[in-house]
């Protein structure tokens, strides 16, 4: 008996039209078809979704916490990307 585990899949659920798919959790399945079905049974038992994506967990590349500083800190000193950076005379509307 080969007890090799079924691979792990990450599940993303769109809860209703107009919203993105959001990570719901993970599960095991032998292949993509069964992963979709298992995801439907597990993550939409209470009408939580209208569309599902499943992705093999192994296929996801994640940024590393070690790179956190070089990845995300440089964005912090660019306040000119945000509208609150700019002064607008009082009374000017729709801007």
């Amino acid at each position, binding site marked *: 008996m080969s007890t090799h585990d*079924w691979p792990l899949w990450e599940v993303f659920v769109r809860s209703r039209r107009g919203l993105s798919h959001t990570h719901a959790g993970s*599960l*095991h*399945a*032998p292949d993509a*078809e*069964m992963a979709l*079905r*298992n995801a439907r*049974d*597990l993550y939409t*038992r209470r009408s939580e979704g209208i569309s599902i994506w499943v992705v093999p967990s192994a296929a996801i590349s994640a940024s590393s916490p070690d790179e956190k500083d070089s990845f995300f800190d440089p964005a912090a000193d660019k306040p000119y990307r945000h509208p609150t950076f700019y002064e607008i005379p009082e009374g000017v509307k729709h801007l």
Partner: protein
Amino acid sequence: MTATVSAEAALALGDDALVLSHRLGEWAGHAPVLEEEVALANIALDLLGQARVLLSQVGDEDELAYLREERAFRNLQLVEQPNGDFAHTIARQLYFSTYQHLLYGELAAGGGEFTALAAKAVKEVEYHRDHAEQWTLRLGDGTEESHGRMQRACEALWRFTGEMFQPVPGLELNWTDLEARWTTSVTSVLDRATLTVPEGPRTGAWAAGAGRQGLHTESFGRMLAEMQHLHRSHPGASW
């Protein structure tokens, strides 16, 4: 209980759903993998929901479920067959959900009194059929062991499939056509699963349509004894 023709049909379809739901409920805590616990329970709950709607059209759902004797049940013998191994359960699911899918599809389009129920149920049953198909493919074309088990299961239950196409009074359907479509669909799944379509007889030596007339197999009596004992032990009590 009104003995109209449609009541007979509601009982037949309702008992099918009730009994199969009960059998699937027996899997709880025993499924081959946790994901399948959830899947089988979903199917059982869908079926129980259908049963409750149908039985309520005839009378009090609990009186009908818990106080009828074995000979008064109108379900197919197929659905009362014990779970056996997972392959037997899947073969039973494939045979029955294919039938139920075709049947509800017809009823949903037919404009009769079962239209509303059938329109909802056909979506549920479509998923049940797909679940059975997926597993039939995997067990049939999986390992040597699973192939053997699935083939044996398909053969063991084959003789209960003829009964499904005995006309049910109150359901105006082309039963011959239904049977032909069922055979095509099941054959296609079995072929793709590298399984051989059984060649044995589709009905036993008894009269065809036995379950619909209240003739059941031995294990059904024990199933009902378990299902009904608590309710019957407290006559008139509310739960």
